[in-house]
């Protein structure tokens, strides 16, 4: 319990430092919300007036203090672009990205785990090369290209879904899922193949260890050596890698959301940066930080459960 308390403390400290850093970074960025709201034709006086109105002329420390005070009450401010509160705006977008992320992760696990484990028994040189080449192709295809490819094949040629016509899961679960599965596939495939390679490498690293020799000397057949003895040991390092994937996927894929026209966090980030919608950008950065830190804490605990030698640090 002390462990979780400590992690929560670290989380808040990180959010504090990160929010400050984002404020600092935006000091250096040219242009602001007033400028992008009024466009190129506005006079300097008009822009100045709007700045004054939005409070953009106050010193950074004052603005940061105000934001902090609001954040402590759960108020993350107003989006300068959409004129709704940031929390309201984020809520919908996060839901979309989370749906996509969960679906992607399920696909990654269902493709990556069985293939990774199943092919790690193939240790002949020829089998190794075959699996390797297949794998490299899977890993090397960039997601945006895969996204376009999937849109073309399943959307245009087979008409299994209508490109760009996003349906929210809460509106129509079946149709929503029928649409979401394709972008999820585009996100999942390269990562699933990387996962396969990772599992295979980890398994290969185990096979020369002494305990594997012991397992054989006990009269275990190769299947049992692989599944009963090596698998759990081999999965330990894979967890770290999978955690990276989880964090990445939950942060929202800018490219895939763009290609498939999905109103998620990734797209919101792009639009917000273009419009200098500072409160929204800040909220997204903090959202990603929360995801990464939470995933890391879960990984620590998983490590401890899977590997009795690992102690929880605090």
């Amino acid at each position, binding site marked *: 319990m002390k462990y979780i308390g400590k992690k929560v403390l670290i989380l808040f400290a990180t959010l504090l430092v990160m929010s400050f850093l984002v404020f600092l970074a935006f000091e250096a960025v040219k242009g602001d919300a007033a400028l992008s709201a009024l466009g190129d034709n506005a006079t300097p006086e008009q822009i100045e007036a709007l700045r004054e109105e939005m409070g953009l002329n106050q010193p950074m420390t004052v603005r940061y203090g105000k934001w902090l005070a609001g954040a402590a009450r759960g108020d993350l401010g107003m989006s300068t672009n959409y004129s709704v509160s940031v929390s309201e705006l984020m809520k919908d977008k996060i839901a979309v990205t989370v749906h996509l992320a969960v679906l992607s992760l399920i696909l990654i696990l269902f493709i990556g785990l069985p293939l990774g484990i199943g092919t790690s028994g193939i240790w002949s040189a020829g089998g190794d090369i075959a699996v390797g080449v297949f794998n490299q192709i899977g890993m090397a295809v960039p997601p945006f290209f895969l996204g376009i490819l999937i849109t073309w094949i399943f959307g245009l040629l087979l008409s299994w879904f209508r490109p760009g016509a996003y349906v929210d899961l809460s509106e129509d679960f079946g149709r929503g899922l029928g649409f979401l599965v394709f972008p999820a596939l585009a996100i999942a495939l390269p990562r699933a193949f990387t996962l396969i390679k990772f599992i295979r490498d980890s398994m290969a690293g185990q096979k020369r260890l*002494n305990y594997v020799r*012991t397992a054989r000397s006990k009269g275990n057949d190769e299947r049992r050596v692989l599944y009963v003895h090596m698998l759990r040991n081999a999965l330990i390092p894979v967890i770290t890698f999978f955690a990276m994937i989880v964090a990445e996927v939950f942060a929202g894929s800018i490219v895939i959301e763009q290609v498939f026209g999905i109103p998620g966090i990734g797209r919101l980030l792009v639009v917000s940066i273009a419009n200098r919608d500072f409160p929204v950008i800040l909220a997204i950065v903090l959202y990603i930080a929360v995801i990464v830190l939470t995933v890391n804490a879960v990984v620590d*605990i998983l490590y401890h459960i899977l590997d009795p030698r690992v102690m929880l640090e605090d």
Partner: protein
Amino acid sequence: MALLRMKDLTISALEKQKYWETVADNISFDMEEGEILGIVGESGSGKSVTVLSIVGLNNDEIRVDSGSVIFDGEEMLDNTPKDWLNLRGSKISMIFQEPMTSLNPVIKVGAQVEEMLLLHEPETPVASRRARVIEMFDKVGLHHPEEVYDQYPHRLSGGMQQRVMIAMAMICRPKLLIADEPTTALDATVQEQILDLMRRLNQEYGVSILLISHDLRVIHSICSHVLVMKDGKVVETGPIDDVFYHPQDPYTQRLLAAIPRSTKEDFLARKKGLDRTAPVQLTVEKLKKTFLVQGNRLFGKKERRTVFEDVSFSLRKGEFAGLLGESGCGKSTLCKCISGLEQADEGEIVFHAADQDGRKRKISMVFQNPYNSMNPSKRVSWILGEPLVLSKVPREEREKRVREMIVRVGLTEEYLDDRMDQLSGGERQRVAIGLALMEEPDLVILDEPVSALDVTIQAQILALLKELKQDLGLTFLFVSHDKNVIYEICDRIFQMEDGHLHEVKGS
């Protein structure tokens, strides 16, 4: 009819993935039922591949060229994979050198032993399997067997781990137990206990034991016959006492001569002649060190455990001191505190010469395993020159000193261009010693510098250390668990026991 008859067995190994080289050449021996047979040889002598071929456990890079292995009336070399599965664990079982890495780290030890029953006696009712395992644990001398059953390997000491391995090997009552260096990684007292246990199991169950070791003393203590192997050939064989006391082959003679046999009396005699006028180099005052240890449960409480306390001693310049103690007694932690790698909780460490001049303390260390303690991809000249680069010694001076040092540690200048991974274990350890001496250190800490080496190499390194001790007048702290080695070389001896340090003195 012999239980095991090996006839003209010749084995090759694939070298550098290119060519096959003979690693065991025409090996023949007979082993009777109930016999304990020893095979002795240094690393690379082919003893392990020979023995692993009996159970078909050699990897793909080893192949049997010719010969025959008859076990219990059957030709082993004709075995199908299925034959092997039925044989391993039930009729022939094995224990290995490093019990820690030989057990599966993520499975409870009880379950690992129980797996044997699952594999070879599936008719045993599940309910009584646990009882069988616990009974076996008791037989091999594990106290509180019920508690041990639910432990993971890393929670047990090396000796307990090896007992678990033996319980696992013996639970299905095999006819033959192959023990590959079963005591090499263990402390002296534990080593004796494990050998005793093996002898007892041999008498109680009549199991034949094939014991492999590089140490003739180990073989001598429990075997009736012995094979001496060198470079893949059997150079001498016979009843153990004949070989041990009247070795015929020159190699066996060398092997025996290399065993350090110094006794406490030899050490005390040397200690008497010690010069006690040199200035004090190092004083350690009331040192204490504790560690945080994680409790048993996931979010369990941690406790502080004392490694050692009230440790005080001083060394004079030029003294060669030994630090004796079993693994886990805290001798390595003490060394880390002295060298500054770890901070002691209480107490004081004074290096008089360095502290008076206000300069940095120069403490160098030589570690146990020369294979993983130095960067394998660097050349010898780079390794030896590095400390001089760090202290900005000009290039010419540096090269001169590196050339002097390589000769000093008994190698030649030609070695300077070799990469570390091209050197043998003994050569690497010489480089490690040279590296430790490069900058005239205030203290050289030698942490088990010879325990990973073959006996003959060990003797050579000890001879080198004796020479250096005489010539250089440096202060050494030699850490070892091997009494004989410490008696052989040290002028003063400190023993670490139960977290306390005391000096070994004449009565």
